[in-house]
């Protein structure tokens, strides 16, 4: 089963998800992309002015993303009509093909996945958040799109996956696109407390 999940098979089995992604994207209300870009840009620059420390800003962006992700996942599951995932491979595809397409309008790919499926890389070009942005030298370590990492982590947390999400590639740092690495650390079991006792 794991052998089937390697690259060529992933490509062909991603088509139904890509379709779901496109359908969900069409249904969503749209806003002007430049408005999003400029709002996010203003947010990041204000954070930098307030915190003055790039490391702290990275953390804050991730935290903000986490809060967004916790709420976003409900809307996602309601509007996207995806079935529950049987494997981590499917989880990765759903995030890439359906979620990223639906909310950001980007065509995202799963570029690699470990054999147990718990670690995978997402990659997409034309990140709407980074359009027109050039990092000044003093912010060279800034993970500008870190909010997206937080969103993925928050969303996964709400479906009982504890994960670690990091930006691996950034258009602002010379790469051709944005790369995000997701590592699922733990699967939580739902525990119900007895109300009687």
């Amino acid at each position: 089963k794991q052998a089937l999940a390697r690259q060529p098979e992933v490509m062909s089995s991603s088509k139904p998800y890509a379709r779901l992604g496109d359908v969900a994207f069409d249904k969503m209300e749209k806003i002007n992309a430049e408005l999003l870009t400029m709002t996010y840009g203003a947010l990041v620059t204000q954070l930098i002015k307030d915190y003055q420390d790039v490391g702290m800003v990275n953390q804050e962006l991730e935290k903000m993303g986490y809060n967004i992700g916790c709420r976003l996942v409900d809307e996602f599951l309601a509007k996207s009509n995806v079935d529950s995932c049987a494997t981590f491979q499917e989880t990765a595809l759903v995030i890439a093909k359906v979620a990223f397409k639906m909310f950001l309008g980007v065509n995202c790919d799963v570029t690699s996945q470990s054999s147990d499926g718990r670690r995978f890389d997402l990659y997409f070009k034309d990140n709407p958040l980074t359009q027109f942005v050039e990092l000044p030298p003093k912010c060279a370590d800034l993970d500008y799109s870190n909010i997206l990492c937080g969103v993925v982590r928050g969303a996964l947390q709400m479906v009982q996956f504890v994960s670690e999400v990091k930006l691996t590639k950034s258009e602002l740092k010379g790469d051709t696109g944005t790369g995000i690495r997701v590592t699922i650390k733990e699967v939580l079991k739902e525990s119900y407390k007895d109300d009687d006792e």
Partner: protein
Amino acid sequence: MASLRRRAGEGKSQQRMLYFCIVAKGDVPIFEVQLGGHAGGSAGGSGGKGAAGAGSGGGGLQQKEDLVQFILHAALDGVEHKVWTTTSMYLKTVDKFNDLLVSAFATAGHVKMLLLHDHRVDEGHIKAFFHDVHEHYLKVLMNPFYEKNSAITSPVFEERVHSLARRLT
């Protein structure tokens, strides 16, 4: 043509004088560059009539650089005058100095672009140059890290201006 330009200080009449600068509201230069001929320019600092750093030759050229800044500053008066006479952003020639002309382009946000050149440059090319630089300037403005009216230090922008300027020479 390149070897002729290298002879700084001698044969000045053969040197292509082409100097471009962007001046923000309040007459603060935010971008200055020497185009065509001399490689490299200097990113503008704030205010000041300091010599542009591109002096690649003897003292004669250095003097000329100071003069260029002076000419452009004086041309700003001509720009102010012409801005209210036309609705288009391209202002054509606003000032003359000996055999040099200053052409200008003024945006609605009072950002002025000045080009110091000799009569050999075609007007149509200058207009296209200004419009293209203006588009790239808009992209710089869209960068959230760029503060309006501050010096433009983006190497990408400088490279684009240089490549656009090659069409002028």
